[in-house]
Each structure stands twice: as C-alpha cells, then as structure tokens.
C-alpha cells in the first residue's frame, strides 16, 4: 500500500498518546494510593512568570533527607536508616569494607538504583530532627556563635524514612496513607567520609557506607483552574515559610 508508511507514522502518534491516556486513566481509577495535605513548605512554587517563557504552573516536591539535615554539621554523626544493610537489600554491592583503600572507587563506580521510598509527613522522624536541630542551635549560641534560627522552620516536613524494591511491601510496613507517601526514587551509594567528602579517614571518624536519595519525581503540574490561584499578584512568597500560604492535596497513584 502506497500510504502504509504514512498511516504508520500517524498511528505511532495516536497510539503513543492513547497509551499515555490509558496509563493516566488507570492511575486515577479507584482510590488513591495516598492522600496527604501538604503546604508550601513541601510543595514549592517558583514563580518565574516575569522572566520565564513557561506559563505552566508546576509545584516542586521538597523533602528532607535525615542524612543531609543541616544540623548534622554541628552534631555527632548518626547512622542513617539508609545504611549498609538497607543498601544491600536494595541491590547495592557493599562487599568492600569502608576502610579498604579501594572502597572509594568501588562505591563511586556503582550506579544509582531505581527503588521506592517512603516519605512521612510531619511525623516523629521530623520532630526528632527539629529537636536535634534546636539542641545544636542552643549549643552554638552558648558558644557565642550565631546561627540561622529559622533554618529548620522553612524546611520540608516530609522526611524520607524507608525504602524498598517492592512498593507493596513498603506500604505494608507503613500503612498510614494520610501521612506516608510511597514514591519511586533513585538512590545512590557512597563512601561517607564525615564530616565532608574528600577528607582523609581518621580513626575517630571512620568512613561509612551510606546511601542518599538522589532523585524523586518532584514536579507536579497544576491544571486550571487551580493554577490561576498561583498567578495572583499577591502570591509572592516570603523567604521563610513559617505559616502555610497554601495547601495542596495531591492524590498519588
């Protein structure tokens, strides 16, 4: 048939779109996997309408990784939940001892893995981080050092607490759908040389195998009419988010 390739080209466009629509419809069918009300601390809107050519409204998911919480620099190192044992269950090869001279290269060579992460909102994990921060701040102030007292106040209360290769298993461990989100995540392994990367190993602070969440699907498109609310001129955000400016209830499939 002379126009077979033309029909094929048009079909590729239509079939690809149909698959996207079916995927989306399946995602939206049934009850949501999780439904949590988040505020502008967890879903940030970077208004660039004056300089950007993109008129779409996108919210960016912010989360707090306990391993990189800023208070850590002023306190003793604590082992993150994303430790050697957890990393092994996620498929990473942690056979080389962190004290080995080859360890840095061995862990650098390992590629980030696709897993599922559990993020808990405004939970005991978050409160523990804040308390730890407050203690460190008090200590620093006592030592006559100044500190940004609002650093924790502006941070996302969505804290990464667990990960697994299987989302069903992860949900079974964290069944509360109003406080825990299960999201696909990219986790990387590294040799953690406390307090900063590149420091020579010390006997007091031996290097550790640690993981970090490298990426989460963090962009959420806001459709009309909800997006109109974000374009209001009075929607400018203060630098520090103490009181909620807006709240969003995304339904996750």
């Amino acid at each position, binding site marked *: 048939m002379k126009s077979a*390739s033309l029909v094929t*080209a048009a079909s590729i*466009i239509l079939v690809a779109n149909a698959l996207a629509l079916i995927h989306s419809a399946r995602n939206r069918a049934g009850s949501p996997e999780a439904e949590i009300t988040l505020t502008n601390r967890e879903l940030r809107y970077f208004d660039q309408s004056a300089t950007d050519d993109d*008129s779409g409204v*996108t919210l960016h998911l912010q989360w707090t990784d306990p391993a990189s919480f800023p208070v850590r620099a002023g306190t003793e190192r604590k082992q993150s939940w994303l430790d050697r044992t957890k990393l092994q269950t996620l498929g990473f090869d942690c056979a080389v001892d962190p004290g080995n001279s080859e360890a840095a*290269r061995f862990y650098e060579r390992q590629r980030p893995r696709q897993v599922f992460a559990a993020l808990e909102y405004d939970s005991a994990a978050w409160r523990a981080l804040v308390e730890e921060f407050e203690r460190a701040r008090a200590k620093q102030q006592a030592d006559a050092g100044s500190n940004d007292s609002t650093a924790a106040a502006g941070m996302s209360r969505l804290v990464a607490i667990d990960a697994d*290769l299987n989302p069903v298993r992860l949900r079974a461990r964290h069944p509360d759908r109003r406080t825990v989100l299960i999201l696909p995540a990219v986790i990387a392994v590294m040799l953690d040389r406390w307090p900063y990367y590149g420091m020579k190993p010390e006997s007091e602070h031996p290097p550790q195998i640690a993981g970090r969440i490298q990426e989460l699907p963090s962009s959420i498109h806001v459709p*009309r009419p909800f997006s109109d609310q974000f374009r209001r001129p009075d929607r400018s955000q203060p630098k520090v988010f103490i009181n909620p400016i807006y709240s969003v209830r995304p339904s996750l499939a």
Partner: protein
Amino acid sequence: MRPQDGAGVGNRIGAQEAADRIRILREELGTEQVQAVLALTPDQRTRFDEWSRAALATLAQQFDVDTTVSQKRVSWGMRIASTLGGLAICAAVVLFFMRYWGFLSTPVQLAIAILTPLAALAGAEFAARRERTRYFTGLLSLVAAASFIMNLAVAGSVFNIVSTERALLAWGAFAIVLAYRYGLRLMLMLGLTLLMSYGAAAYTAQMGYEWLEFYDRPEQFLLLGLLVFALPYCLKHTRNADFPPVYRLVGALTVFIAILSLAEWGVPSYLPWEQVTIERLYEFGGLILSAGAIWLGITRGWNGIVNTGTAFFTIFLFTRLYHWWWDWMPKYLFFAVIGALGIALVLTFQRLRGKMIHGEIGAAA
C-alpha cells in the same frame, strides 16, 4: 541511452549520478587534450550535444536534479537553509506552546499537543507530493518530529507521569518511518540515535538502574553502534540507496565516541579492572579499530568511513602521544614530533595512494 531513458534511472540519487557523468563528459569532450585523441566529426558533435542536452533536460524534469556546478552549489545552500529553518521553526513551535499552555484547560492543551505533530505530518506529505527535492518535506518532517517529542513531554507533564525510556522508542520509530517515507537522511540519523538511546536505556532500566543514566556505561553503545554499522548488510535499500552510508556513519561515530569516552574521559566501564588498564585497552583498541575502518573504507569505497577512521585514528594517536610525552618533553619538541608524525602520515598515505594508482593502471593495461 535515449533522452527519455532518464526514467530508467530509478531514483533521484541515480539520476543525479547520471547527470554528473553526462555533464563531465560534455566538459571533457570540449577540452583540447581529449579532442586530440578523440576527434568527433561536426555531425557526431552535433548529435552528441543534442542528446546530452535532451538527456539532462529529461533528468532535470523527471527528478529535479542539478545539471550544472552552480545548481549544485545552490542546492547545498538550500539544504543548509531548510535544515536551519526547520530547527528554528521547531524552537518557535515549542516556545510558543510553552508561552501560552498555562492559560489553556487540560483537554485543549492535550488536543493541541496531539494535533501539532499530525498537522506537521500532513504538511510534510503535502509538500512531498508537490516537490521532488524534499527541502520543504525535510523541514516539515523535522517540525513533525520535534512536535511529537513536545507532545509526549506535555502528556507526561500534564498527567504527572513518571518519565520512562519508552518515549525514546516512539520518537525513534516515528523518525525512522518519516526517513524511509520521504528519503530523509537527517531523520534517519535522528531515528537511529533515538533507537540506540532507547536500547541502552531499556537495558539500564532492566538492570534496576535509573534509565536516564543510560549513557553512563558507553560499552552498551559499542554493541549498538556495531549493530547499526552492520545493518545495511541485512537491509537492502533499493529505494533509498543513500541510506547505507548513513547507517555506517552513525554506527562508526557511536563506536568511536564510546571508545574515546572510555579511553580519555574517565567514563566508568563494565570491566572489573583498574581504571588505567581499561583506559589503555580502549586507547589501543581505538587505534586498531580506526586503522581497520580506514582499510575497510578504502577497500569498499566508503568515503565517509575513511574520513571518520582517519579523524579518530589521529585523535587516538595524538592523545596517546600526549600521555607519553607531554610531561617530560619540552613543549616545542612535543609539537615538533607531532608535526614530524603528521608529515610521516601524509607520506604514508601518499605512498598508499601511489600504489593504488599503479594498481589501477596495471589492471587497465
């Protein structure tokens, strides 16, 4: 060949080659050297001129080929202008959509995103039915491909779908279909690149890694590049006779860039050895493979492969010399040695060329 025999050439590439041969023959017959050994009678000359003019006119009419050197130059200009114009229109379409899509409802956003590549495809088909040179067809095909990329990106964004490597498969397949329908080499290059990326991304995802890290282990591209290079042996291109060189060029470039990244840029490898060992292995592998590409290109008459092989042989050789000598040799001496090596290479190629000329003269005798 009768003037009307232009129809027997089959495709535009064959027609252009036939037109080039006739044009060169006309020019050569007009020179004093040829006339000294092949003197045509006035009657023969007149009949040849009439035949060649008619043959060129027929080819030009049937296939819109270039019959003079000036026309060829203009055609190149048109090719470059249509490619640049296509790219500019792609950018305009995407930026225009981004500028206003936030003010549209979701169904309208989606409808525009789907209809734009379909409209560009219809435009390409319309142009292809009205022109034989494919300038506007190529331009609109490029717009269709860019619109389709934007289409799936918008659908993914609107419905907050987690990104997947399968989009690369759809885009690659679309570009390949357009390439074969309209005989567009640029679309074939785009399609092959997208499909190779899909192959690497699918394997990466299958192994449990993030698919976007597909470029992280270039060895995947070594295999894919070799596969693309070998494809013309399996696929017969009677209609698009100019496609096999594109397959070979894309395959060769993929293989050489993968080797170069492993040898020189410190990119991680699947091999479990020391970094230095892996780099040396790929450096020498690159030298041997590029020399092999030059040999293969010469024996098969593949100009693109000869040029690609020569370029990468030079890069691999000079980077190896840099690693050996840069630190301990005075800089002026290093460049003097490089210059001497360049002269040695020219002399080697000159000798090789001389042998080929003598061989051809001997075969003709």
